[in-house]
């Protein structure tokens, strides 16, 4: 598996750490009900198709990335810096 890091270019999967769904970007705000925390931490769809995941270029530039990939074809259709999205 290869990922194209926006900073480092096309690199081996072994350089990256997989965290989980993009949902982790949306931490509940203060005062949110517990059900929202439950959903944030635990409830995930199991998609056969396009998913957006958080990856971390641990053995590279230490950037967190949003990777768009297809769980059926394994095609990677996008890799973005989380830091860029926030701007």
């Amino acid at each position, binding site marked *: 598996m290869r990922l194209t890091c926006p900073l480092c270019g096309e690199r081996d999967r072994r350089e990256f750490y997989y*965290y989980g769904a993009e949902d982790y970007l949306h931490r509940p705000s203060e005062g949110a009900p517990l059900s929202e925390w439950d959903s944030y931490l635990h409830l995930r769809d199991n998609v056969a198709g396009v998913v957006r995941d958080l990856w971390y270029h641990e053995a590279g530039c230490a950037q967190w990335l949003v990777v768009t990939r297809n769980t059926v074809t*394994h095609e990677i259709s996008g890799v973005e810096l989380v830091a860029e999205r926030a701007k």
Partner: protein
Amino acid sequence: MTQSHRIAGGQIDRTKTLRFSFDGLPYQGHPGDTLASALLANGVRLMGRSFKYHRPRGPISAGSEEPNALVELRTGARQEPNTRATVAELFDGLEAKSQNRWPSLRFDAMGINDRLSTFFAAGFYYKTFMWPKSFWEKLYEPIIRRAAGLGSVTREEDPDAYDKGFLHCDLLVIGAGPAGLMAALTAGRAGKRVILADEDFRMGGRLNAETFTVGHATGADWAAATVAELATLPNVRLMTRTTVIGAFDHGIYGAVERVSDHLPTPAKGKPRQILWRIYTHRAILAGGATERPIAFENNDRPGIMLSGALRAYANRWGVKVGERVAVFTNNDDGLRTAKDLQAKGVDVVAVIDSRQAGELLPGIRHLQGAEVIDTTGRLGLKSITVRQANGRSEIIAVDALGLSGGWNPNVNIHSHHRSRPVYDAGITAFVPGRDGPPGLLVAGAAAGQMSTHAALKTGLDAAVAALELSIGPDLPEAEDAPIRITPLWHVAHGKGRAWIDQQNDVTDKDVKLAKQENFTSVEHLKRYTTLGMATDQGKTGNVIGLAIMAELTGRSIPETGTTIYRPPYTPVALGVLAGRSRGKEFRPYRLTPSHHWAREQGAVFVEVGNWLRTQWIPKPGETEWRQSVDREVLATRRSVGICDVTTLGKIDIQGTDAGAFLDRIYANTFSTLPVGKCRYGLMLREDGIVFDDGTTARMGEHEYVMTTTTANAVTVFRHLEFCRQCLWPEMDVQLISTTEAWAQFSVAGPNARKLLEKVVDQDISDAAFPYMAAGNITVCGGLRARLFRISFSGELAYEIAVPTRYGDALLREMLARGAEYDPIVYGTEALGVMRVEKGHVAGGELNGQSTALNMGLGRMVSKKKDSIGMVLSQREGLTDENGYRLVGVKPVDPNAKLTAGSHFLEKGAAPVAANDGGWLTSKVYSPHLGHDIALGYLKAGDKKIGQRMRIVNLLAGLDTEVEIISPHMFDPEGERLRG
């Protein structure tokens, strides 16, 4: 022995003779031979016994698809089972043995299985060993395990090295037959970076086995000339003996190069094999095709082989497999074998052609509309029974029979991403389907392009298309014969068995049984009969099996479909997958700055995370580890001890929001920490469970230094980056891991300050550097350093850090300058004793399941601010008043032993889960208290201080009365550390 079956020609070096043995008998061959070709040259057809029925078998192929001729090579530690004789390159001194037979290959006691075959049909195991259930483990499985398997493995350690390597190219060409060579030539001349890989030791593919001409040369000479040209191109890498084993995601191909298997032992410094990872966006599969046999009764005798293999042995290796040869074919390719053999002077006694019409071979007895229906010759073919077009049967004495049922494109690698092959009725075979691995094109016979001309042309075209070239080289002239085939999979005749999958002993009867029991889908057929499940993945048998199923069910072959293949293309030694990751090199380990000093002292080391740390340092006369550890603890508490704590994670955190950032990271508050001070911090996971702990110091207004546990150094840094980048990108905070940058030592004990004063340049008196102070200092006259007045041991203690390369020197300097205080260096065991005495949590308590409340640190979680895990640490299930609490434990009888992992029980309670009160997390012997002490999690433990309970360990047979005490078992008031 003479090479009785050697004939003229071939690509072997007759000027050199190689000696080898098979089952102890000596033979001779030549460089260029395989073990199979050399044995056949010596008239040896019998090479193995089949898996299930122990039928005598010889090779049916001349390549990697071989299901039968599996042998053991070499002896001793290098003994290797299940090696295909058809691809084992001959070398001088090779020792080979047959396998799966006892006492000998010619007489095999297990051959009785063949007579009992009615009992061993498909599904036999599933049906027979069902009951009684208890018999499976004790009786059936051991017996089956003993009978199963083919060769035997050596019990000795593999003496050879295996490597892994990485390659990048513009175009990977898989297979160096006419299509692959033409593709490589096209890309190579265009200046592209090309890798051409072929499993054979000689490139050329079928060109080496045929008598075709390419251009003005023989096919083999054209191949040699093309390889020679490619070898001159610096942008082309030629890899013989290299099998591409699979296509993986995103343009990664795995390949195994057998660097040394053709040598008695690897050359000095060379690996036996290399696992290559080849990265490329474009690849061409030019893997050729595999011939398939025709199924009929007793079609598995030694001497019966694929017609193309007979031709290959004659043309490439100068070997006639038999003195009297017949060919059974359903297509023109079989006729080619008859012509080639006849031209070589071999006696071709008959061609049995299942087709009714077509070209008649001149000068050969060519029986059209005929079929072979049976054979004789248990240890080697003696005769065949032919049913002629007029219905009459005739027995013909032959000792070799070639079978040609058509050729199957080697679609394997193309189907590794689950692309289903599609049926091409024109060649009666499956060809690559749609949606193969992205960037992989298929050329030549692998694409169903069977003629030499078509192979050359599609190879060229594929390279031009893959690399978007404007033009390729001129195509040399070559034969372009059409495929003339009338499908015949199976001769329906008689009651005997016709073998389909020879490696797994699957017969036509098994397919019929599968049909009868309604396992008619190809996937069910495969699992029920084991068709295609052997190490050859059914390269020669699969299509016949499913064609028979199609016949039986009245469906067409496309309707029946085919199974797909998975990596590896051919079997791979586990050693090459492991590579260098063996023994001590299984994974890398790291050495602390004090490692060399400690080794000089004879220290005992322990793996902690990926570090090797000093566990204890025995002194002369100490025979028990406890003697050393007790001494280290007592000496530290009496005077001063030094411990290397470099392995703790260190993270520099800077920025105007550094304090606010840490307030959100830690459960407690850091923004209020004064500059020059440090504080113990507790870090939670978002689900409210304790993640990590450590002290963090404020070195400046906007600068903190965090320490983490050794085990979590990497994960905490990752977590901080996640929080910084993903959760709070608006914060001005920057992080860098400095774990490797600083060597850090704990200096602990009543004389710790006095010792440090010998090396530290600044005033570190209690007034100048009080408890929990932190600061930048210099040591030994100017070397920059950091000092933290923190204590894990409960003593007056400091941690001092210097740039890593000075760690060894600082340790030696401290020991030398502070010699008057008798400093000792203590290891992780003494460290553990002292922290348990103080009731500090560590690995056993930070177990990923415990909360701050469990640890007695509930008040550290500030609810005045948002922090990671704060909200969920307060949820119902985690705030139970009677939940687990950290307690100290001591035995009522000071001589009684405690063990970690033991469980708390009330007195008189039965040792069952319902009565479980909790467990001991850490246990040590305290030399101060003179007995074992422990920490543990006990339900409502904070309310049970002073009570007596039992700790029970059923595994160790322990049931000990204990007293529950405060976890702070040594100097509970903390007077010593403020000293």
